[in-house]
C-alpha cells in the first residue's frame, strides 16, 4: 500500500441550529491513498457530504484531525486551507457549479490561471471528450457535458486529490456513464486519488475500495478485487 494522500482521525461534526443539535459525523477515521479510487456509499443524511466537505477543507470538524500528507489541515488557518484547495484538490459537484458567464474553455482557464503547473484548458477538455465544445457557455451544454466541463476544470491543475459529490446525481444513467468514464480515465491516466460520494449502489463497482457510511459512522469497508468499467454499470 502506498502512502496516504489524505487521512482523517476520529472526526466528528455537530451542527447547531438554534436549540437543535445535529451530529452529522460520529468519529470517522479513514485514508485515501495515491492513485486510489474510493467510493463513499451511503443513504441521504448519512453524513457523507459532510465528510467530503471536511476532507476538502470546505468545513472544519468539531473534533478529530485531518492530514494532507504531513500537514494537519485541522490546525491550518483559512489562508492555508485556501492554498490547499487551490493547489491540491479538484472538486466535482452534483450541480456542476460552473460559472454561467464563462465558456467551457474559460471555466477551465479560471483554474489554470491560478495553478502552479496546470495542463492547457483545451487538453483538459479533450481528456473528457469535449474538445469540440470549447466555446460554448454552460447554458448551451447538456447536463452531462456541463459535468464533464466541471471534471476538466477539477483535473486541469493536476491535483493530488479529486473529490466528487454525487457527480451523477443530476444525470440520467447513459449520461452518468460518460461522466464516470471520464473520472476513471483521469484516475488511471493521472494517478489522481479520487473520492466519489454517491448513494447509487451500482457505482461502487468501479472503485478500488468502497466505504459504507451510515448514521455518521463508517459501517464497513470493502475492497473490489475485480473492478468493472463504468460502461457495465447499471442503475
Amino acid at each position, binding site marked *: 500500500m502506498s502512502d496516504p494522500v489524505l487521512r482523517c482521525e476520529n472526526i466528528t461534526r455537530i451542527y447547531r441550529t438554534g436549540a437543535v443539535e445535529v451530529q452529522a459525523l460520529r468519529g470517522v477515521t479513514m485514508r485515501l491513498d495515491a492513485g486510489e479510487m474510493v467510493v463513499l456509499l451511503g443513504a441521504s443524511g448519512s453524513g457523507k457530504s459532510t465528510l467530503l466537505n471536511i476532507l476538502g477543507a*470546505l468545513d472544519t470538524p468539531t473534533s478529530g484531525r485531518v492530514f494532507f500528507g504531513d500537514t494537519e489541515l485541522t490546525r491550518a488557518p483559512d489562508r492555508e486551507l485556501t492554498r490547499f*484547495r487551490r493547489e491540491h484538490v479538484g472538486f466535482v459537484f452534483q*450541480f456542476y457549479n460552473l460559472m454561467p*458567464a464563462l465558456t467551457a474553455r474559460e*471555466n477551465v*482557464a479560471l483554474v489554470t490561471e491560478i495553478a502552479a503547473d496546470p495542463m492547457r484548458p483545451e487538453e483538459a477538455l479533450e481528456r473528457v471528450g469535449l474538445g469540440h465544445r470549447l466555446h460554448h457557455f454552460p447554458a448551451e451544454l447538456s447536463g452531462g457535458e456541463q459535468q464533464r466541463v466541471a471534471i476538466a476544470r477539477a483535473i486541469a491543475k493536476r491535483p493530488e486529490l479529486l473529490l466528487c459529490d454525487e457527480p451523477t446525481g443530476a444525470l440520467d444513467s447513459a449520461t452518468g456513464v460518460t461522466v464516470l468514464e471520464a473520472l476513471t480515465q483521469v484516475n488511471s491516466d493521472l494517478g489522481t486519488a479520487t473520492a466519489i460520494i454517491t448513494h447509487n449502489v451500482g457505482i461502487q463497482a468501479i472503485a478500488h475500495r468502497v466505504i459504507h457510511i451510515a448514521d455518521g459512522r463508517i459501517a464497513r469497508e470493502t475492497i473490489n478485487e475485480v473492478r468493472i468499467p463504468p460502461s457495465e454499470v447499471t442503475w
Partner: protein
Amino acid sequence: MVSALDRKLLRDLLRLWAQVLAIAAVLACGVMVLVLGTGTRASLEASRAQYYDRQRFGDVFVTATRAPETLLPEIAAIEGVARISPRIVTQALLDLPGVTEPVSASVLSLPASGAAPVLNAPLLRAGRLPDPSHPEEVALYAPFAEARGLAPGARFFAVIEGQRRELVVTGHVLSPEYIYTIGPGAMMPDDALFGVLWLGHTAAAAATDMDGAFNSLSVSLSRGASEPGVIAALDHLLAPYGGTGAHGRADQVSHAFLQSELEQLGAMALILPPIFLTVSAFLVNMVLGRLIALERPQIGLLKAVGYTTRAIAAHYLKLALGIGLVGIVIGWVAGWYLGAAMTRMYTQFFRLPWLIYAPSSWPFAVSAVLALVTVATGAGRAVAGSVRLPPAVAMQPPAPPLFRRGWADAIGAGLGLRQTTMMILRSITRWPGRAAVTLFGVAASVAVLIASFFTYDAMELMVDEIFTKANRQNVTLMLAQPENDRAVADARALPGVIVAEGALSLPVRLHNGPRAELTTLTAHPAQVTLSRLIDDQGRAVSLPDHGLVLPEGLARKLALAPGDRVRVEGLSPPRETWEIPLAATIRQTLGQEAHIAAPALAALMRQAPQVNRINLRVDPAQMPALQAAVKATPAIAGLADLARTQEQFTATINENLAISTVIYSALGMLITMGVVYNAARIQLSERSHELASLRVLGFRRAEVGYVLVGELMVLTLAALPLGWAAGYGFAALVVQGFSTDVVALPLVVQRRTFGWASLIVAATALGAALLVRRRLDRIDIVQALKARD
C-alpha cells in the same frame, strides 16, 4: 388587525433595513432640497413682506439735486401715487474715536415733526429717535453701531457737506431700505466701514442748504397703479431739478440683492430634486426587482392558496411606498431643520428684524406626492412583470441566465484578460439595464459634485478678474461732486500715491424704441492702467474713440446690435440726451454697465473731462497717512480699500462655499452610496453561489472580492466621463438659474474640479462596495453551495 401579508411587509422592511435606508436617503435628499429651498424662500419672503408692510417700504424711489417742497402736491396728485415721503439724503465721512480708516455713511433726514417717516420708517432697536430740536442727535444703523461699539449716548465726529460736527447717538435702528447694505463704490457689505445715520430734518436741511427742498423721494403706489406710468411722471416733474431717474423696487439695491438670493433658492429647489428622485426610482426598481425574483416561489405559493394578482402586486407596491415614507420623513425632518438653520444663516447678510420660519405646507405635500410617485413608478415594472406568472411557473426557480458572446469577448481576447475579469465584463453585458442604473447613478453623483465644486472655480475667476485683472488699484476715492482733471493731480499728491487715474460714472437710462434700461455710464480715460475693462476671456478691452461699448447681456435686453444708435438719457446734471452709436458689445463676467472713452463723453457734454472717482495705486506702508489725509479732505466722500474688500470677499465666499460644498458633497456621496451599495447587495445575493464556488476552487477572498467589487468599479470608472459631461451641463444650468442682474456666475470648470469630483465618487463607490465585500468574507462556503443544491 394586521394581515399576514402586512406583517411580512413590515418584516421585509426591517430585514432589508440597510438597503431601504440607502434608497430612502437618496429620496430624502430630493425631498429635503425641495422643502429646504422653498421653505427658506417662503420664510424669507414672509419675513420681508411683513417687514416691508409694517415699516411701509416704498414702491418707487427717486433722487434729485434739489427739488422744492412746493412740487410735492403735484407729485402727490400723480395718478397711482398713494403716499409720498420726501427727505434729504447726503453722504458723510465719519471720524470715529480710535479708528484710522475713513468710514463713510449715508445721512437720511427724518421728518421735521419728529414722527416716523411716512414711508421707509426706521425700526427702533435700542434707545430713541433723534429729537428734532437737537441737531446733534442721530440714530445709527444698528449693525454699524454694533460693529463700531457706538452705544446710545456715544459721541463721534462727522464731516457732512464739508462741515465737521460732533454728533451724539440716541438709538439704533434697522430699515427696510437697508436689509442688505452696501456702501457706494463697495463690492460687498462692510458694517464697520459704511453706516447709515438718521438725522433731524432741520439739522439735515441746514447742513445741506436744503431748507424748503428735498433731494430724495419715496412713493407708495395705490392698488392697480402703473409703476412705469408713475416713474415717467416723476421723471418728468423732477427733470428740471436734477432728478436722476425714478426706479421701482427691482432697482433698489437692498431689495435687488435679497430678491436675487430668493431666486437662487427657487432655482435650487427646481434643479436638484429631479436628480435625486430619478435615481431613487431606479434604485427602487432594482431592489424590488431582485426581491421579487428571490420571492418567486413565495409568490407562486400565495397565488396557489388563492391570493389575487392584485393583492400580491399591492403587497410589493406597499413595500416600495414604505421605502418612500421613510425617505419622506427623513427628508421632511432634514429639510425643516436645515431650512431653519439656513434661514438663520441669512441673517448674517440680510438684516431682517425678525425671521418667520414658517414654510408653507405645500412643499411638504408636493415633495411627499413626488416621492411616492417616484417609488411607485420605480416599483411598477418590477412588480407588474413578476406577479403575472402562473403559480406553477412562479414556484419553479427562474431559468439560468443565458450568456452570449459579444464585445466583451473581443476585448477579453485582445487584452488577454483573466477569467475573473471576463466574468465582470460578461455580467455587465448580460444585465445592461442594471449596469445602466449604476452608471447613471454614479454619473449623477459626479454631476452634482461638479455643479457644486465649480462655484469655487467661478469665484476664483471672479476674484482674479475683479482684483487682479480689472482693478489694479488698491484704493478708490469717491468724490462728493464731479471735479475736473485737476482733482486727479491733487490725488497724486496725497501720501503714498504711486499712480492716480480718474473716471466718471453717471446714472443714465438707455433707450431703444420702447425698451429702456437704467444703468451707469462710465467714462474711462485713455491709456488706463488701473481700473480696466475686461472681457470674459480675461483680456483687457480698449475702448474705441467714439461710441458706446455694452455688455452682451445689456445689449440683448435692449435688442441692440453694434452699429445701432442708442438714446442715452443722462440722469444727472446737465441731464442731456445723446444719440450714440453702439460701437461694440463685449462678453463680460461682471457688471452690466455701459462704457465710453472719456474724451468722447466730454465732447458730448461739451465740457472739459470730469471725474467723480479716482483710482489709486498706493504704497501699502503709507495707507494710514493716506487715510488720515482723506479724512481731512471734505471733497472726498469715501474711500474703498480693495485689499480689505478682497480679504472680506474671499473670506465670505470661502465660508459660504465651505458650507454648501459639505452639503453637496454629502448629497453626491449619498447617491453613489445608495446606488453602489444596493447594486453590490443584489450582486451578492444573486451570485453568492457562484462566488462561493470560486472559494471552493481555491480563489482567495481578495480574488473573489475582486469579481464583486471589480464590476462596480468598472461601472464607476465608466460613469466618470458621463458624469463630467453631465456635470458641465448641470453647471451651465446652475449658472443660468443662479445668475441674476446683480451676480453673473461665469461658467468655468477647472480640471481639478473634475478630478476631485471623480476621486470622491470613486472612493465612495469603493467604500460602498467594500462594505458589501465584508459580507462576502463572512459567507459560509458550504451553506452558499447548499442554497442551490
